[in-house]
């Protein structure tokens, strides 16, 4: 097996990975980026509406307001210290992206333009604020391109189309990773002092998803199997506006520009669910509202979808009702200029022109709030006490800092990537100077090689495609927006049966070495099954409703018992694991505690967990 030795190994080349690569190499570390996709294919590139930062270019804004919105949006499961860092660092990070050449849209004062987004307000919920910095409706594309360009400029070493399939842990220290070179099928070992997981989410556990096919949670599954607990896995965000049946994302920026959700009776139903923020309430609230409208028989043609309407005549009518100035009114050209990609998606896939017709939308599985637990320097944490796994780092969707708590605010995924990617990169640059190399075990890679041979040689009757489809359906039906003990149990039973077939009855058609995507997809299915299982288990253990986790049999938030992060621990048995879930990890409430220490009266405390109203 070929061995590559670099100070820092970055696994995944999306926003978090590239940001970490840039800053670790600027800090003097010898960096290699290992990615199963060409970097510009990463899913960061599909993020549309914007990146939140309190620049205050159009409205008065401060990082503390962004912090508050992030904590409230997360239904108080957000770690408050981490949210403060997120909001404060966001300002510098966005300015740095502009300095790297990112082509943001501009205000009339030639500054970075900003738009409204769900849950982003000023003065602690007083009114919606323009905070999302945007480059048309392809902000993520611009971030990904800009970071990749800067990596080329800085001569960062890339191993493109190398898929990481295992991590090497020696006496509790992460000493490297094992990867398959997709073009040859050969195994390689990457020996690193620092190993940074930035592998993205696992939306492909569900049948209707905005996520790329590549989002199979490889990094989180690998870490889980090697002893890292996964945090807050029960919280998975369903974005309210996916294209009906296809799940392709329609940015919240549509509603940020004035678009409204309409049911079969022509009602703007969000007025009933969130009287103040209406269509720009947080995503969990809006997704639930769409399901409730559907249950009440008010979805369009009773088919489980609603209309998203950005037609200027509709938007301007509501603007007029709200007393907005005529200068805020939009016309066809505004829609074309501000939402070109959205128009393209609808015209291509639906034959619908949003300038003239409303778009059919339904909630779509979108974002994992949970993942590999880390501290604010992106160092991996392995227990409730905050013990580190030396050599292991993580950031982005695969990690859980936790800044998103029980529900992520729109734009905060991009903020998370650049803020914690950068912090992790800088931390790694210091870390690699301070530690010696950990020797690799002689049999490094042997176990995962054997696992791949098992999959390749399998002679059972089950195709990976069939098992995947069944997993996605049961997750959609039983571990979706609304949950009960009964549906979760059904989900766990189905997943157990699918795992049994995956380990004992699998076969693939392609036995060759070169670009064996049949083999890789089968292995990725194993990752998805593990993560689906942990999600369902954590969801069944959390007997309350909070943020994106909505239990119909436990409808209230229960701060007394569950104002805590869940940690799900795997016992290392790949084929038949035992998973233990605990709630011993307390939420960081430091901003609230500071208010108490300052003697601020309870009704004046901004950061006290209270009922969420939008």
């Amino acid at each position: 097996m070929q061995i590559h030795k670099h100070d820092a190994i970055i696994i995944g080349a999306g926003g978090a990975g590239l940001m970490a690569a840039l800053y670790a190499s600027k800090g003097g570390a010898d960096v290699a980026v290992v990615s199963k996709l060409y970097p510009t294919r990463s899913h960061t590139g599909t993020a549309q509406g914007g990146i939140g930062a309190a620049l205050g270019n159009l409205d008065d804004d401060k990082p503390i307001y962004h912090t508050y919105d992030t904590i409230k949006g997360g239904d108080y499961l957000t770690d408050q210290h981490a949210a403060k860092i997120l909001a404060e660092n966001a300002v510098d990070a966005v300015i740095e992206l502009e300095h790297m050449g990112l082509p943001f849209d501009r205000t009339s004062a030639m500054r970075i333009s900003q738009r409204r987004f769900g849950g982003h307000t000023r003065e602690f919920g007083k009114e919606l604020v323009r905070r999302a910095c945007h480059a048309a409706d392809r902000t993520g594309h611009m971030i990904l391109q800009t970071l990749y360009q800067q990596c080329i400029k800085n001569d960062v070493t890339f191993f493109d189309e190398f898929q990481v399939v295992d991590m090497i842990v020696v006496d509790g220290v992460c000493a490297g990773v094992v990867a398959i070179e997709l073009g040859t099928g050969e195994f390689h070992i990457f020996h690193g002092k620092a190993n940074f997981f930035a592998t993205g989410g696992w939306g492909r556990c569900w049948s209707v998803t905005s996520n790329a096919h590549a989002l199979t949670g490889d990094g989180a599954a690998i870490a889980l199997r090697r002893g890292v607990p996964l945090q807050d896995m029960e919280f998975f965000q369903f974005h309210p506006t996916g294209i009906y049946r296809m799940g392709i994302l329609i940015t919240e920026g549509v509603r940020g520009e004035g678009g409204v959700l309409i049911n079969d009776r022509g009602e703007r139903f969000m007025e009933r669910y969130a009287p103040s923020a209406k269509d720009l309430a947080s995503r969990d609230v809006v997704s639930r509202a769409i399901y409730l409208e559907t249950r009440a028989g008010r979805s369009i043609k009773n088919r489980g979808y609603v209309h998203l309407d950005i037609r200027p005549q509709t938007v301007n009518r509501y603007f007029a009702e709200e007393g907005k100035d005529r200068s805020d009114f939009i016309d066809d050209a505004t829609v074309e200029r501000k939402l070109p990609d959205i128009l393209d998606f609808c015209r291509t896939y639906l034959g619908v022109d949003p300038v003239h017709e409303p778009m059919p939308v339904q909630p779509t599985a979108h974002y994992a709030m949970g993942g590999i637990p880390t501290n604010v320097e992106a160092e991996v944490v392995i227990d409730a006490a905050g013990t580190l796994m030396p050599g292991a780092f993580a950031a982005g969707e695969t990690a859980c800092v936790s800044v998103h708590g029980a529900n992520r605010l729109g734009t905060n995924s991009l903020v998370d990537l650049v803020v914690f990617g950068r912090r992790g990169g800088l931390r790694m640059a210091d870390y690699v100077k301070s530690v010696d190399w950990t020797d690799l075990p002689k049999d490094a890679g042997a176990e995962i090689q054997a696992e791949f041979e098992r999959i390749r040689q399998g002679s059972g009757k089950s195709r990976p495609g069939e098992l995947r489809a069944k997993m996605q359906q049961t997750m959609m039906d039983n571990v979706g927006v609304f949950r009960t003990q009964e549906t979760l149990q059904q989900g766990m039973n189905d997943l157990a049966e699918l795992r049994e077939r995956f380990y004992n009855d699998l076969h693939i058609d392609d036995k060759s070495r070169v670009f064996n995507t049949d083999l890789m997809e089968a292995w990725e299915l194993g990752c998805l099954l593990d993560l689906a299982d942990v999600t369902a288990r954590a969801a069944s253990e959390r007997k309350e409703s909070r943020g994106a986790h909505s239990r119909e049999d436990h409808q209230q938030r229960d701060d007394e018992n569950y104002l805590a992060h869940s940690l799900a621990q795997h016992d290392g048995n790949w084929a038949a694991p035992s998973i233990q879930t605990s709630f011993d990890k307390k939420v960081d409430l430091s901003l609230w505690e500071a208010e108490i220490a300052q003697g601020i009266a309870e009704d004046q405390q901004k950061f006290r967990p209270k009922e969420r109203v939008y």
Partner: protein
Amino acid sequence: MDVTFKIRRRNPDVPDRQKPYWQEFTLNEVEPTDRVLELLHRIKWEQDGSLSLRRSCAHGVCGSDAMRINGVNRLACKILVRDLGAKIQVEPILGLPVIKDLIVDMQPFFDHYKQVMPFFVNDEPLPADGRERLQTQSDREQFDDSTKCILCACCTTACPSFWANEQYVGPAAIVQAHRFIFDTRDQAGEQRLDVLGEPNGVWRCRTIFNCTPACPRDIEVTKAIGEVKLAIRKGTTVGIISPDAIH
């Protein structure tokens, strides 16, 4: 409806499959709104797991699944059955070495991309107030079209000049250079114009226009190449893009 697929295949790893060959597959219950990518997945997941292709986002943004579909370069995730009919022929894109089935070697493509300095250059001191550099929205819109490029290679591998001469940097690399050449904040425009003024730069373009309809992002590729040619001829990037062309 039923749809018949005819797919160009090879597998360098299997002795009797190393030479390219055609294989047919039939799919039932196809909807006119199905994407070609979904149908290729149905073939792979239900009939023959060895069918190999790249794909990721499945909605025309990541640029993984460029292929030649009924003779035209497309993203498989952005072309629907209703636009193609019941007989669909799929081949790898042309001009790059085929590795396996629909997967080609993208290295030469990315090497050309790297030739044009595809990164922002501005070595002047940052604004003293610690904030962003300033730019007007109309200056920003000068290069808006070329920022849409996703490096899928549909344009470059549709270009007869590239097929004839693999040393030609190709339309995609020129679009990437355009994105920086016409950005008022960037300072390396002259160096890029020098690279593109070389024999294997823009002058290999014979304005055949294959690149423009091939672009899944609707970038006016030939126009962008023309603007770069004009900038080289005039020795300036100012006044090339008319204000009328901007929204």
